[in-house]
């Protein structure tokens, strides 16, 4: 039986990590996500599952501890919020270049700079286009409930290991701080040493006489080797784009208009859809769950059906570019968003739909 609790997103993701058999967490405090590490430290998983929890001296250190840990073939995770994630960009690029699986949680707050600690979605570009240098992609999952904070821990690790690619859970202050009912699976045992070696033959676990040495690296001094690596990476990203798109629709079947929104904006937009429907406006909600891979095709398919699309984001308009790329000018696409920690009300969104899309 699944266990029912009332929990904050940040607490839930911590407990989910322990239950999923994560091997290590490395992090540094920052609002609005400090409860992740606090919960782990309070639960003392090193006494139960054997999970390691360590407070690093900075986010730069955290991400590089993750880099080391991931190279061991173990399940490792960090969490932070926007400024801390910016500090991790070099490390993230290395991890992506070395093709290591790991999970990075960003509980986004408003920027730029020190900004505010209130919720935001303004790190979309950073997460999906690559905030670090070089051509790489993270697998990006956007939870919109505390339950998904829990469920996506497992999903993120599964995808990360399947593709040997870092995965990011792009959450925000709303999901991190709110409490909801949440159900947990039973504890899963951590992988044994033998399982790790069997599943991750590439891992640097000590070179036995039976194999060549394993080298975890992102370095390819010669351009021709680097290009080969880039081609390999791009092929992988293409495969992910083809196979791993996840999204959810709500009242889209007869929709004449579409709202596209992720994470907590999608929750708010759901209510806006209800308000609009009450007014007789046929609008549906498409919620991308994976931000990379983005549901380009799936959104593109609606261009025959709908007359306009509104993206709702807590930022100045970021995902809207991907939606525009998806529809290729076939229908009107507009963006509505509050910024800097302000959160739209469902009514505002509904108004925006009427003004920008239906009326506009």
């Amino acid at each position, binding site marked *: 039986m699944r266990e029912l609790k009332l929990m904050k997103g940040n607490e839930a993701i911590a407990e989910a990590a322990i239950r999923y058999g994560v091997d290590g967490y490395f992090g540094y405090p920052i609002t609005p996500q400090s409860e992740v590490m606090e919960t782990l430290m309070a639960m003392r998983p090193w006494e139960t599952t054997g999970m390691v929890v360590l407070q690093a001296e900075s986010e*730069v250190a955290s991400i590089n*501890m993750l*880099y080391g840990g991931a*190279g*061991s073939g*173990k399940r490792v995770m960090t969490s932070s919020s926007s400024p801390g994630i910016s500090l991790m960009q070099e490390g993230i690029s*290395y991890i992506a270049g070395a093709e290591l699986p790991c999970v990075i949680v960003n509980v986004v707050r408003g920027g730029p700079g020190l900004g505010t600690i209130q919720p935001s979605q303004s790190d979309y570009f950073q997460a999906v286009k690559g905030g670090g240098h070089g051509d790489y992609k993270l697998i990006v999952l956007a939870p919109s409930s505390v339950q998904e904070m829990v469920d996506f821990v497992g999903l993120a690790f599964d995808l990360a290991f399947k593709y040997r690619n870092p995965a990011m859970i792009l959450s925000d202050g709303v999901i991190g701080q709110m409490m909801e009912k949440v159900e947990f699976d039973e504890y899963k045992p951590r992988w044994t040493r033998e399982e790790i070696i069997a599943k991750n033959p590439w891992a640097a676990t000590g070179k036995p006489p039976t194999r060549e040495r394993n080298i975890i690296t992102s370095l390819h001094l010669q351009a021709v080797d680097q290009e080969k690596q880039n081609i390999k990476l791009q092929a992988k990203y293409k495969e992910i784009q083809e196979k791993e798109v996840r999204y959810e629709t709500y009242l889209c079947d007869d929709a004449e208009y579409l709202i596209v929104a992720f994470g907590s904006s999608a929750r708010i937009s759901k209510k806006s859809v209800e308000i609009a429907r009450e007014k007789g406006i046929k609008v549906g909600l498409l919620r991308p769950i994976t931000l990379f891979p983005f549901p380009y095709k799936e959104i593109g398919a609606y261009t025959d059906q709908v007359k306009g699309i509104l993206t709702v984001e807590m930022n100045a308009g970021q995902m809207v570019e991907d939606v525009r790329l998806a529809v290729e000018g076939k229908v009107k696409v507009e963006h509505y968003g509050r910024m800097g920690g302000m959160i739209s009300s469902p009514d505002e969104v509904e108004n925006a739909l009427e003004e920008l899309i239906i009326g506009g």
Partner: protein
Amino acid sequence: MIDIKDIVKPENLVFKKSRVLTDNPMHYCPGCSHGVVHNLIAEIIEEMDIQDNVIGVAPVGCSVLAYNYIDIDWHEAAHGRAPALATGIKRLMPEKFVFTYQGDGDLAAIGTAETIHACNRGENITIVFINNGIYGMTGGQMAPTTLEGMVASTCPSGREHARDGYPIKITELLAQLPGTCYVTRQAVHTAGSVRKTKKALRKAFENQTRNRGTSIVEVVSTCNSGWKMSPVKANDWMVENMFPFYPLGDLKDE
């Protein structure tokens, strides 16, 4: 007279390249100290019989390609972050021998925080620190350990402390952290010093079985390319100029 042929026989072998070294020719400049230290590490791994149980972490610097030479599992690190990687690795696999192999730019400039905090936590790892007083890989820029007056491409008329700061004795600082258990400064310019460095490295690796904290072996080294001297001249210059400022010997052995 004895013929060379009579001497060069398997039974008379007294020194050969460690089997833990690969056959790849090293990319280092002629006379570079990195090669000597690589050999020593390989020998120790061979002698301790831990080839299947050791993980090296090499950050950017001339020795980032160490993985081509020492035949063990390796992990590249971003510039300055080897101690953080090693922390991640060792915490998750405490049964492995984990070492970092860092240059002076790496350990004492960009990686200052990671190095100090790994040592302060007493991570049970070995840090091999190649202090050649310069940024070798990028072509000879000033390092944090560049001596006053010493010329580098970013202090072409010699380091001046008013502009460039002082050379930093980072090893002395690390020795004061309660997390470190063994901190020593060695060199590899003579056979005698090579022997001492080997002993030091062996102790630094063995300490991991005793979980005593962090062990650090600094090797005062030459970078004849960066210094723009012949390898032989570079050794002399090191003895004359580096050793007085970075005196050899144990700083801590607990």
